[in-house]
């Protein structure tokens, strides 16, 4: 009997030490990066984005609009950080956060208007989870603080880690 116990203890220790840790991953799919700052089409994209706000009327449409843009700017930030464009990436992540914060109120309004929001809530949960996954990866690849020195103005410190932490917090708080 003691042999069996010994075997089980050794086997479980072996599995604990050598097994690969696996975390649940969100199946939510983020979009490809679109036009980037600096591209001639980027300004057109911004105009289209502004006009779309009126086209996307209705609670669910507003949900889609804000989520699409939160996704878009998250991907934009990630790409820009990869290219070490920290200032532009910082701005993109701030935009993503701003659109993300607009999403929960659309669901509150939809519920108030008698719409079943359970599907949308599930999508939002998945999206938030995916965002957090990406933000964690992002944090590993950027410096904690980036000193930005514009030509004709005082230098500014961009606290990238703090922004990423705040972004994660915002996604986890929904």
């Amino acid at each position: 009997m003691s042999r069996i116990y010994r075997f089980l203890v050794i086997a479980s220790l072996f599995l604990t030490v050598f097994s690969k840790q696996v975390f649940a991953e969100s199946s939510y799919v983020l979009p490809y990066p679109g036009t980037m700052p600096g591209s001639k089409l980027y300004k057109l994209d911004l105009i289209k984005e502004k006009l779309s706000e009126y086209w996307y009327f209705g609670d669910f449409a507003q949900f889609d609009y804000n989520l699409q843009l939160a996704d878009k700017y998250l991907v934009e930030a990630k790409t820009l950080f990869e290219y070490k464009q920290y200032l532009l990436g910082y701005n993109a992540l701030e935009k993503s956060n701003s659109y993300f914060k607009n999403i929960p109120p659309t669901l509150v309004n939809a519920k108030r208007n008698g719409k079943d929001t359970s599907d949308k809530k599930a999508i939002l949960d998945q999206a938030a989870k995916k965002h957090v996954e990406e933000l964690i990866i992002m944090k590993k690849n950027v410096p904690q603080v980036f000193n930005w020195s514009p030509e004709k103005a005082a230098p500014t410190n961009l606290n990238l880690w703090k922004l990423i932490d705040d972004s994660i917090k915002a996604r986890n708080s929904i």
Partner: protein
Amino acid sequence: MIRKIYYLYLVLFLTFSIFTYLFVDSNFFYLKSLVTGIGLHDRILVSLIYLLYMVLFFILYFLLIKNINRVPAVIKSSILPTVIVLAFLIFSYPTIISYDVFNYAATAKVTFGYRENPYIIMPIEFRQDSLLRFTQAANKIALYAPFWILISFIPFVLAFGNYLVLIYLFKLLAAIFLIGCVYLLLKLSDKPNPALYFALSPLVLVETIVSGHNDIVMMFLALAAFYFAKNKKILISLVFIFLSILIKYSTIVLLPTLIYSIYLIARNVKIDWDRIYFLNFVLLFIVFLLSPIRAEIYPWYAIWPLSFLVLTKKRNLIYLFTFFSFCLMARYIPYMLTGDNFGLTPNIKMFMTFFPTGIIALYMIFKKKLLANNSL
């Protein structure tokens, strides 16, 4: 004799309205007590009955248009029976051949009920709505242009949330626009024949009043555009053609002929309207033939070219189109019989639609009869 034929035609439509109720879907809970399941399970029987109806409809229709000069007097003395049959048709059950009227209801509900943009939000996103139980295109955004969606506000409001009432109201709306088309055809022609040819067509009656398709609204507005152009009311004419385009886009092809007509009017040049109407027929027929690019050839699309064909003097072509209309209405049979839209069904439908008509068309071209001018 013509009176008897006309009455028989009316009686046939009356019984056809009742026949449509064999196709009531059990998910359409408003009519649960009328569900028989025959349309779904006795496929051979209902396909044969449907075929018999179509054969009889078109034979009687052909006899009526062959004696079209005697028809107005018969209709004038039979107003009440005609109105009764029209009412029966409005209360027929639409899904015998198409679920489109349910799609109109779904789009109206998304737009005016939930106040969402129907070009972004699909009906399926409102899972709690009972509409999803009986509508078929719930996973699609709005397929129609904005003016149609705007018009659908009227039946939506008048239905007070009852989908059964909403369906009948859409069909009533289609019937009103059909009457509008008949009125315009009477105005555009110096004879009542084109209007009668159009109004009595089994394809027009079934697809407009039984199925409630909105194509009739688009064609009413297009005919109105040419009517106002003819009466030198250019601005109103242009407004109507744009409204027509904003129903279902197809009439955009009429812009060149309308603008050309307006140009000739402005220059005080006498217009050969018969030629303009024939050109409109050709343009709309091309769009009709190109419709498989988007989906497939639907029989109700034939209403587009037919609306202008009846105004031309090409009687043989009109007869050929009558036969073609029959072939189009017969397209429903393969699906009715098999319940399957795949496999051989699309090929059989294509063969049924074009092969018999093509043979007759070739014969008429060979005999130089197809485009001969000979008014109805």
